[in-house]
Structures are given as structure tokens and as C-alpha cells.
């Protein structure tokens, strides 16, 4: 019996080994290496010098690097994701989950931006924001609101909002699909029982559906927050962190350090901070949802 258990254990281990090796090689090893490199002053192809925590000290103290400003932008995006993007996604998911006419078509339409390449979306929004011929300014001027027409991506005051709008818009469909799957999994008997008791749609959603899909909501919140902390591609295409670092986020800062300034040690330090922040937020969100339970 013991021998059989041992053989089973070995079999399980052997079957898990390839996946584990891939996981360690692709995910864990780079994280460990980034942590190691963050203690060095290095440029990837030259000699590296051990400098202890100097990179971390510089990251937290240097105004020229502007890490806190970048982090603040990411946290603002995370807040907007949780308090604007997710409620919109949830609203659409609840509406479609009711089984309205054209449900499938609406589902596809809302999910479409997720399927389109971010670079393409970036190019589309660049055209929308173009100060001369962009549809936004053209519409504003057409409505006689000339004073509201702006250089959306070129002005410090408007650039951040202009970058966040498509970022939030693009992933509404993604969260909507996750939540829609949850809404659809609510047993029909529960809904029917509530309806027999005279519950309105709002009450059914509030007291039955939303509590039922809490697990999926937790996943959505974690994805929204960590996704915001890691946000990069759309910002890179639209403003590349400018103007005057107004739209800088930790990922654009990291790319700047790694590939423009050749500061691989500092780039690794930012990478480590991003990983730690993502883990920390994921744990905090899990803890909050656990407490709610």
C-alpha cells in the first residue's frame, strides 16, 4: 500500500515536473534574477558593480526619476478601474445576463476592443485626440464649444485623463465577460424564488446575483488593480509617458531605464517594486473580500 502511494506520488511529481520547470524558468527565475540585479550598477553588457540598496534609495529619493509620481498615476488608474470601469462592466453584465434581445450581439460588441491590438487602439485614439482633425475637437467645435477643444495629449492637465479614458474603455468588455459568466451561473431557481416573493430586478441583483458572483468580482478587482499597476502599452503608444512625465507610470519608467538609459540595475529595481506592489495589492484585496465573507 505504502509502495503504491509512493509510486503514485512519484508519478504525480513527474507529471507536474515539466509545468513546474516552465513556471520556475519563465516566471520565478526572472523575478529572482531581477531582485539580484537590483543590487548592482550595471548596463547589461558591461561590468556590474555591487551597490547594495543604493538603487532603492535613489528610486525613493530622486525627483529626477519620479517614481512616486509614476506610482501615483498607476494608483489613480487602479482606483478608476475599480470604481468606474468595474461598475460599468458589472452593469452591462447584469443587463445582458437577464437575457435581453440581442444578448449575443451586444456581448460581441462590448468584447471587441479586447480583441483588437492595443497598438491599433492607440492609433485610433491618437486620431480621435488629434488637435486639428480629431473627432473630439471637431465635435466640440461643431457644437460651438470651441473653448473646450484642447490639445488633449499634449497638455499636462488633460493628458492623463486622455490616456486613461481608452485604457478603461478597452477592458470594460474583458471584465464584463468575466462577470457575465458569473451572472449566467446563478441558478434559475434562486431568481424564480425571489421573483415569486415579489423581488424587483434591482433587489434580485443586489441580494442574490452580486453576492453569488463575489468570487468573480474579487478576481476582477485583482485583475483591474494589478493590470493598472502594470499598464504600459496604450500609454506608450499615446504619449510615451509625456508630456513632461505627466502620464508616466512605473512600466514606462522601467523601459526608459532599461532600454534608453542602459541602467539595467535601476530597471530591475523598478521591476522588483512592481512585482512586490502587485503581490501586496492582490493579498490585500483577497483579505478584504475574506473579511466581507
Amino acid at each position: 500500500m505504502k509502495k503504491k502511494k509512493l509510486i503514485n506520488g512519484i508519478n504525480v511529481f513527474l507529471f507536474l515536473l515539466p509545468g513546474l520547470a516552465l513556471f520556475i524558468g519563465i516566471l520565478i527565475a526572472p523575478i529572482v534574477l531581477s531582485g539580484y540585479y537590483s543590487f548592482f550598477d550595471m548596463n547589461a553588457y558591461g561590468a556590474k558593480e555591487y551597490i547594495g540598496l543604493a538603487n532603492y534609495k535613489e528610486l525613493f529619493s530622486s525627483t529626477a526619476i519620479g517614481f512616486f509620481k509614476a506610482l501615483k498615476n498607476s494608483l489613480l488608474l487602479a482606483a478608476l478601474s475599480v470604481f468606474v470601469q468595474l461598475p460599468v462592466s458589472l452593469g452591462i453584465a447584469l443587463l445582458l445576463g437577464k437575457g435581453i434581445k440581442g444578448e449575443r450581439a451586444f456581448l460581441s460588441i462590448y468584447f471587441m476592443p479586447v480583441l483588437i491590438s492595443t497598438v491599433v487602439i492607440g492609433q485610433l485614439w491618437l486620431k480621435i485626440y488629434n488637435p486639428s482633425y480629431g473627432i473630439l475637437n471637431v465635435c466640440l467645435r461643431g457644437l460651438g464649444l470651441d473653448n473646450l477643444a484642447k490639445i488633449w495629449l499634449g497638455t499636462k492637465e488633460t493628458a492623463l485623463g486622455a490616456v486613461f479614458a481608452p485604457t478603461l474603455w478597452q477592458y470594460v468588455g474583458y471584465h464584463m465577460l468575466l462577470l457575465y459568466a458569473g451572472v449566467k451561473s446563478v441558478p434559475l431557481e434562486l431568481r424564480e424564488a425571489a421573483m415569486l416573493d415579489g423581488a424587483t430586478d434591482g433587489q434580485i441583483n443586489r441580494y442574490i446575483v452580486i453576492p453569488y458572483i463575489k468570487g468573480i468580482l474579487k478576481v476582477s478587482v485583482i485583475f483591474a488593480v494589478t493590470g493598472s499597476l502594470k499598464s504600459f502599452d496604450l500609454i506608450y503608444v499615446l504619449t510615451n509617458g509625456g508630456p513632461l512625465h505627466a502620464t508616466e507610470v512605473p512600466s514606462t519608467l522601467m523601459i526608459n531605464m532599461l532600454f534608453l538609459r542602459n541602467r539595467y540595475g535601476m530597471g530591475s529595481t523598478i521591476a522588483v517594486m512592481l512585482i512586490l506592489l502587485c503581490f501586496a495589492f492582490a493579498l490585500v484585496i483577497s483579505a478584504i473580500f475574506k473579511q466581507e465573507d
Partner: protein
Amino acid sequence: MKKKILATLLAGAMVLSLAACGSTPAASTETPAASTEAPAASTETSVEAPAADAGEKVDLEMWCIATESDSNRHSYEAAIADVTAAHPEVNFTWEAIENQAYKTKIKAAVAADEMPDIFFTWSCAFLGDFVDAGRVYCLDDAYETWKSELPESMMGNSTYGGKHYGVPLTMNIVGLFANMEILKSIGYDAVPGTYEEFIACCDALKAAGIIPFGCAGKETWCVTEYLESVIEKSCGADTLNDIFLGKATWNNDDVASAVDTFQGLVNNGYFDPEGIALSNDEVKANFMAGKYAFYMNGTWNCADFAGNAEFGPKVQVAEFPVINADKATLGQLIGGPSDTLAVAASSKNAELAATFTFELGREICHYGYLDGCGLPAWTPYYEAAGINPLTQAVAEICANAKAYVLFGDTAMNADSANTYLSYVDQVYGCAIDGAGFVAGLTNDIG
């Protein structure tokens, strides 16, 4: 005769400048070398030379930035066709990657020591980092064969510790391009020669509802084309050269004052306010569409401007006027040879690759010059009478050059260059003034 004069003048002018990157350049990045930043285009081409009579073919691979939409594309294609025909023993493949993406790709390849045999690079500090890491093949032996055609003065920006590591292609300067149709509409037959006249012209343009300058704020190197010219024509080439090369600090009142002068141009409304959100391609298109009267940018644009049947006849190129005659003179220019080919030290056929690179560099220079993509770094071996008038005008400006200052973001090492660009951004966005600019750079760079 004409080509000899041109070659002599260019070589002479370059000697003046090569105190700049001289024999031991520092390190840098971000040259606006190629005129067009194609959207993520990456093309791979294999050129099979005519079959060799005997023996196995040697594989050589090259990476460059001459994408389909790059104005240098034709010169690369023509040069490769010529050189591969002359080397039937070589199976040559090449890949063109968009400018900005290339910078990342080549650095990653150097870090992993997985470079192609031959690669495009920018001279001075950009190549210097790779040389310091021991990843670049020394071209001293191969250079002996080409010394008579490629002046030592042109090799300076890719010479480190007295050894040659790069083959220069063309050289470019920052030019003041003017739409003469617009200038004529406000009563100017030529680009104003003095700074006072120039400002009066800008005021007249403004009064006529025409934007004097277009500048792509989204790509900071485009702002430096203006700012560096203003600093050079206010403080003199030597001052700027010394600062870029770390021989002097940024703590310089004249520089602060010049930066204020530049900011004055911005605050006076001479620049298109929409330009801050535009890429260089968009600003260039606006200039060609007649939205601006002036456009300061690299002379690699000559090919595109002159090649446009409608716009070509309207445009002229001139030198930015002197602002402070006590410290600067005409003939002090921003630019120099930067586009370079180099050979990887890890190449299995480095010796052959070196010879191939020199031949390729010579032909790219030849076709590039004929196409109007820049002035030749190599002594021309051909009649250049058919060169477009814009490039001829650039050649004339260079013939009268007294000093060159290499683009700041090429002359400085990558970290310093990006710190510098960050402050240039702030100046253009009017977040800091001249005093803030020099104080910040003194603190962060020295």
C-alpha cells in the same frame, strides 16, 4: 572638379569638428538619423549572389533601420545589390527594423551577445558602449585598404582608444528649411540672414496668421534641433561641444540665457501649439502641406522634400542666424557623421564581414548622397551634378563650416542624454526656465 572641391571642403570641415567625439568618445543614444519612423515595419530580405564557381557560401547577416518607408531604403537596396554581385561567395541576408524599436533590439542583442555579423549603429557614445563591452570587431586592418577613400577625419566618431570600430555612411546637419512660397507671400525673397530680421519675419508671419515653426514635441530630439541651434548661435560651438563632451559643466549663464531666448520664441507663439502632441512625421507632413513657414530638422529630409514634385520647388534650406555675434559665428553647425555600420566581434566570419562592411558602406554612401539623404562621409568617386538643389545647398553650408557640434543625445552617454532630453522637454513645455535648466542639469549630470 566639383566633387573634388566638395570632398576637400567636407573633409576640412570635419577636421574642425572632430575635437568633438575625437578619439575617445563618451557614449550615447537616440540619433534622429533616419528621417522616417515607419510603423513597426520589419522586413527581412535575402540576397543570393550569383552562384560561385566553387566552394561553400559564407553566410553574412545585417540589421539596419532602412525600412520600406525610410528615405535611405533605396540606397541600401542598390548598395546591397552591387556588393553582393561582387561577392558571389557570400549568402547575404538583411533585416530592417523601425528606428525606435531597433535601439531596443540591438541593445538586447548586444547584451545577449547574439548580434548579426554586420549591424547599423549610431557613432560616438551609442557604439562606444558596445565597444567598451568588447562586442565590436576592430576594423583597423580592413581600414588600411580604404584609407584613400575614407578620410581619417570621418572615422573620428567611431574611433575609440585609437582603434576604428565603425564605417561611417553619410553625414547630416540641422538645417533651417523654409517654405519660400509662404515667405514670398509676406514679402521675403530669401530666408532672413540676421537674427533681428528673422524675428521680424516671424512677427510678420504671425500677423498674417501663419505659424512660423513646426516642432514635434512628442519626439524630444526634434526640440533639440531647435534648442541646440539657438544655444550654439548664442554661446558658440566650443562652449556647447565642451558641455556635451563633459569637458565643462552645464553651469553656464550664457546657456541659461540662450535657453530663455528659445523659450521666448515658444512664449511669443512662434511654435505651433498643437506640435507638442504630434510626432515628427505629422509635423513634417504639416510643413509640406504649408502649415508652417519654417521647419528645423536634419538634412536627411532633403531627399523627401526635393523628391516631392509639388513641394520641392517651394523649399529652401539655410543656416540658423547668429544670435550673439560676440560668441558665435555663421558656419557653426549642429551635426556630423553619425550613421555607421559595425561588425560584431562574435561574427564567425568577422574578417570577411569587415571587408564586406567597408564595401557596403561606400556604396550606401554613394547612393545615399545621390538620393539626397545626406552628404558623403566617403570621398565621392562619381560625378554628383544631378544631386537635388537642397542637398547642394547643404553641401555649400557645410563647405563654409567653421565647427560642428554633434547632436547632444548622440554625444552624451545614454543616461546623461536622456536626463538632458527630459530637461529639454521641460523647457519646451515651459515648466522650467533657463536657470532651472542649467541648475537641474548641473545637479544631475555635472
